[in-house]
């Protein structure tokens, strides 16, 4: 994330010739994420989309409680924090009184799929015209690698030390599939950031999700399968491979819904 690279023109970002430049919406900041973490990539993809649509000056983000809690240190647009999981409720309040602004939430799996389950379901069901970026790495990173609702069966975490037992802990939650049955949810896609190929697909999906909001089409959400090498006990390369070989077999990539 730390960069001294030149900034590209707002509104013209993301064009092929400027691919290596830093998005205007992304600040030069000291990186606090671990080696091999996916958050940095997703932060950048969000900023590229915002630059590309020229909406930085009307964007209001709602940051989660989780590893991305200080996302405002990286993003150069208006940001508020939200209590853990209440992120979509806060975004609802903002968007309803400022319908001409672009409002998005950025949430992890603890924030969105555990403590904030009610908020995300009802925001989607109301068809709030907001964009949700859901970063799913299957663990609570900020608090030390505890089991998340999205932790895979058998996966070892600090609170499932013998591996997640379906009998004791229940099944991993597929949030997108749950939301897909709601008429209010208009665009749902699952992507990953474990390879350059997948990053490009993630980039397209995130752009689409913002475009949906710009066009007033309603609730859109992109689930991003992301790596947590630190709490998966893996090297960054192994973690990237695990997305392909394990995680994406339970959480299939692709568009679930597009209206």
């Amino acid at each position: 994330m730390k960069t001294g690279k030149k900034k590209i023109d707002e509104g013209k970002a993301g064009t092929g010739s400027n691919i290596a430049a830093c998005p205007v919406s992304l600040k030069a900041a000291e990186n606090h994420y671990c080696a091999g973490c996916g958050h940095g990539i997703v932060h950048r993809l969000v900023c590229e989309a915002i630059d590309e649509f020229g909406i930085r000056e009307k964007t209001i983000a709602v940051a989660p409680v989780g590893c991305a809690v200080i996302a405002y240190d990286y993003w150069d647009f208006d940001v508020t924090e939200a209590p853990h999981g209440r992120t979509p409720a806060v975004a609802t309040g903002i968007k309803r009184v400022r319908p001409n602004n672009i409002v998005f939430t950025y949430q992890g799996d603890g924030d969105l799929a555990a403590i904030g389950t009610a908020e995300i379901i009802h925001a989607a069901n109301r068809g709030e015209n907001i964009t949700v970026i859901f970063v799913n790495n299957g663990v609570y990173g900020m608090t030390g690698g505890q089991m998340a609702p999205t932790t895979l069966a058998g996966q070892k975490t600090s609170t499932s030390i013998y591996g997640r037992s379906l009998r004791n802990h229940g099944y991993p939650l597929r949030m997108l599939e749950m939301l897909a049955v709601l008429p209010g949810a208009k665009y749902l896609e699952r992507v990953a950031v474990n390879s350059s190929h997948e990053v490009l697909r993630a980039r397209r999906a995130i752009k689409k999700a913002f475009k949906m909001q710009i066009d007033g089409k309603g609730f859109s959400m992109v689930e991003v399968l992301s790596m947590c090498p630190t709490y998966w006990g893996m090297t960054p390369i192994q973690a990237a491979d695990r997305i392909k070989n394990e995680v994406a077999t339970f959480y299939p990539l692709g568009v679930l819904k597009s209206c």
Partner: protein
Amino acid sequence: MSGKKILICGNEACGEGAVMAGCAFYAGYPITPQNELTSYMAKRMGETGGVFIQAETELAAINMVLGASAAGVRAMTSSSSPGVSLKQEGISYLAGCELPCVIVNMQRGGPGLGNIGPAQGDYFQSVKGGGHGDYKLIVLAPASAQELMDYTALAFDLADKYRNPVLILGDGLIGQMMEPVTLRTGEYKPQRVEKPWALTGCAGRKQNIIRSLLLGDGALEEHNKKLQEKFARMKEAEVRAESFNAKDSDIVLVAYGSVARTAKAAMQAARDSGLKVGLIRPITLWPFPEKMIQEAAGTCNKFLVVEMSAGQMVEDVRLAVNGKREVHFYGRMGGGIPTEAEIVRQIEALA
């Protein structure tokens, strides 16, 4: 319209006060005995171009208010005791983020699900914190439908003035009782302030960040000191109370909200029978009218605090009196309402 008198219930008067103050966002969740307020806001927000949302939970409602407030508009939520307990997380964040809003609690009997009768068992929760961390809310305790309208409007002005949540603490009695209310059309003007901190999109300025998370070395302590200085300013400037015969009494009653009205009748009845009784009625429960209590302690012999609780405000009276005088208590709980006759009997026993 100015001066027009209408007959409405306290909950509706509270809603009208919010509309009068320019409330542009309301989120709520059904709970008795405040449902008339939510219904009234559903109707009035529709008429005034504001936003009404029936939230999925009390948690969502207070956080929608947090979002609307962060975006710079006047926002309100309301509930009753169990629901207000659920809102405490959000209230702590609002206070920590210095976001203005108005929260209404039409108290009911507790603890737990309790019942839907009027009560004042949420005094501690309201004035001593409620949520986590060191923070204070201005707590206004109206005693009539008229005051519910007037103080709700005032609450919005105070919230904006201090960038702090303000709580209206009523109960099921004044919330549901119908009374004549004089509209303030043309008389009251909202005290608007600039909100350069609001999230509006960063066009022409640097990004705005709303946060209560401060991880830097010493940063949170500094933030807390700043908050405490603000609370000290509120304490200095915003105490509201009224007193009746407090300087010419042997016994001074202390009561707030709906109970203060019964206490006033009891005071009059006692005076009619020759007993020198006065009444202090705190209108702000925080900041608490300590000085008025202290002054009364200089001239009276005893205090009698009357509440619809097991004795909560009585602790603040004792702190203010600081051992100078006897402080007695009479309370009813769980929807029980102290009657005039009961209070008079308590006065007679102390006289």
